[in-house]
């Protein structure tokens, strides 16, 4: 199959998929878990083009999204694409379940399980759903074989029987992006960095607290803003901040402060199996540090992660 690298090829793919989806779905209803990432967003946009409001998109905000992310999903899909969007703010539910849980594996499990539960509850409220759409892409199939569905909704109970729709399962990531752009999705969504399923949960290391999560969200937003302003967006593969669960001494207004550090991670990789750190210009690092320590409450120190993968992983948990 010819790879989709041009707008023309993307247009052809979209037309072909829209026709196929219409033929297959008819007047039935489709359900989709919309995370706001590029894969699920492209699937949503394709289905909206094909069957309009027959697609019900559910966006679960687990409280671990980056700054402005849920708002963007609502703006793009509900306001601009007139989608049938169910927005569930489950922040409290997730954060209450995660309170006091420090073990990374346990945190991941709780987030995963709770996500399915919330999605399942929403699915049960809806009537007459026949299909479940997923943003599976080709590397997911290659990695995990044809059976295992990579995305979060894999664990739905048996009695919820849907037929799977995976319209982009033969595409690579870069092809998905070309299609997304052609579908009119904003660049910030199409070229969004990879973001783990548990979201900021794995970057607020140890037991998550709301104030530290807020420091994480704000520092991450500053980092992304400064990378965008300084031409590093799109150049650096993945960059984010981490706020670990410990404090150190500092001085603020001539007084001793006792606050968290923020750790900056910025890496480049070809295949996510190995990664090297980005050599960020020191002038920019100074500026970012300055902004973080002055604008983010509870932070008095900034660190830059020097560790390549291996031996460090890209994420900390």
């Amino acid at each position, binding site marked *: 199959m010819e790879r989709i690298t041009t707008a023309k090829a993307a247009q052809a793919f979209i037309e072909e998929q829209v026709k196929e989806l219409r033929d297959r779905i008819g007047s039935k209803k489709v359900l989709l878990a919309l995370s706001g990432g590029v894969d699920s967003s492209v699937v949503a946009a394709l289905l909206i083009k094909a069957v309009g409001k027959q697609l019900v998109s559910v966006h679960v905000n687990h409280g671990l999204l980056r700054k402005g992310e849920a708002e963007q999903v609502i703006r793009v899909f509900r306001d601009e694409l007139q989608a049938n969007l169910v927005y569930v703010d489950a922040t409290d539910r997730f954060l209450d379940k995660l309170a006091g849980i420090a073990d990374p594996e346990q945190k991941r499990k709780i987030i995963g399980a709770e996500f399915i539960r919330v999605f399942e509850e929403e699915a049960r409220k809806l009537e007459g759903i026949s299909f479940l759409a997923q943003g599976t892409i080709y590397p997911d199939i290659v990695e995990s074989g044809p059976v295992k569905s990579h995305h979060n909704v894999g664990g739905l109970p048996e009695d919820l029987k849907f037929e799977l729709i995976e319209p982009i399962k033969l595409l690579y990531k870069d092809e998905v992006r070309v299609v997304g752009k052609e579908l009119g999705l904003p660049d910030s969504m199409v070229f969004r960095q990879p973001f783990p399923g548990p979201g900021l949960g794995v970057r607020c290391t140890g037991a998550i607290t709301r104030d530290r999560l807020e420091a994480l969200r704000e520092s991450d937003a500053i980092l992304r803003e400064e990378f965008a302003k300084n031409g590093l967006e799109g150049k650096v593969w993945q960059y984010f901040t981490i706020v670990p669960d410990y404090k*150190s*001494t*500092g001085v603020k207004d001539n007084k001793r402060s006792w606050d968290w550090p923020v750790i900056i991670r910025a890496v480049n990789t070809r295949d996510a199996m190995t990664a090297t*750190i980005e050599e960020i210009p020191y002038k920019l690092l*100074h500026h970012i540090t300055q902004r973080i320590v002055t604008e983010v409450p509870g932070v008095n120190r900034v660190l830059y*992660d020097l560790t390549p993968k291996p*031996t460090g*992983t890209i994420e*900390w948990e």
Partner: protein
Amino acid sequence: MAEKIIILDFGSQVTQLIGRRLRELNVYCEIYPFNKVPSMDGDVKGVILSGSPCSVRDANAPQIDLSGIKGKYPLLGICYGAQYLAHKFGGEVEGSLAREYGRAMLDVKDMESPLFKGATPHSQVWMSHGDTIARLPEGGKVIASTESVSNAAFRIEGEPTYAVQFHPEVFHTTEGSRILGNFALGICGCKGDWTPDSFIETTVASLKEQLGDDKVILGLSGGVDSTVAGVLLNKAIGHNLTCIFVNNGLLRKNEYEDVLATYKDMNLNVIGADASSEFISGLAGVTEPEAKRKIIGRLFIETFDKYAKQIEGARWLAQGTIYPDVIESAGIEGIASKIKSHHNVGGLPEKMDLKIVEPLKMLFKDEVRRVGRALGIKEELVGRHPFPGPSLAVRILGEVTEEKLRILREADDIYIRGLREYDCSSLHIPSASDPRIEAGNLYDAIWQAGVILLPIKSVGVMGDERTYESPVALRAVVSTDAMTADWFHFPYDFLARVSNEIINKVKGVNRVVYDISSKPPATIEWE
């Protein structure tokens, strides 16, 4: 006492730099608060008035009686000092519309003025003022201007009084050292013979006289100050000096053994006081930073006491106090008269009825190093970075254990060795201990460096296995006074090399981060 310049401090943050610049010119000087003017004896060759955070127009602006000084001694007013001379002697100072901070270009109007002898007619100066001198005092003549400040420097006719609005003492004033030199060596007529050798000669003589045949105790820490104090005293009184070097079990890898051996090689009469196990067991289970510090402080005094008591007939306790520890600062609200008891060894002086001797108390840090070099002390001791009293305990966040100490010592050893081995002569970075020379290796370019062990774990991969181990943080700062500090801009290849070596060689570490925070709001050490 030899000839000297008196610096009167009105509370500027950079007053100490005036002193250091003069000392670099081999001119001896002393700093006093503006309201504690010393007696003007025959050794005084000139007076400098410093800058201030205050405005001369404020009701509570610092005041000084200059009747015994102005016109009688060469006088140089800097910033506030210049404005004070204008304000008090018939000129006028106004709040300026535009506050002037930072670089400006100075245009010398009177190249004949002895203050600018040999200086270039156009040079960069550093400004930091809100007020401006609108009218010169009686007899005032402009000798230099900038674009926005016409009275940037003036003299008073018929007397050796000069004033500059800019700060000649800061690095960014490119002709600053020359201007201060012209004042001290030219206008004041100082000979410039205050050198490390002359200091050693006079200090050894006066220590001999002061101490006679008395016995003296000194605590050695391995740091520059106590080492130089020890060698000076040894030169003066030989084995009447007994040094005690406490091993708190929290020192760097091999530090206790190596430094103790070096001291013995230097013919110092030194007792090794190994109390490692007391310190380690005393710290077990303690996580709170202040509590850790207190325990270490208490155990240090107990250990030192125990050994000091065995020295019969001791009359003196020597301390490595240096000048910045004793300078009284003229704070904005007046005088903070409390003198820091920086190297104070608990209540020992009272208990054992010891008198205090502080041979370095008139020296700045860089002078201590110069004296140390002149005394022939090895560079690895003289050029040492400052190291906190509680040692590695403040670099292990949370509880201190033997295992954590092992990890930190290994990582620290790789880092410090890496700094010493990295040739940075091609980078042309000034040396941290003497900005007039270039650093040959990264260690010399840095004020203070260390590794911090973080109290968390993170995921990693080694081989095909998942690891869950501790991260360490590298810290390296440049500073002139430790009050403010900037993180050091390492070549990225150095960071890559060192972090790689630490992760590969130190069991228990799978991640390395670099601290990119300045002080303030962060501190140099973490606890």
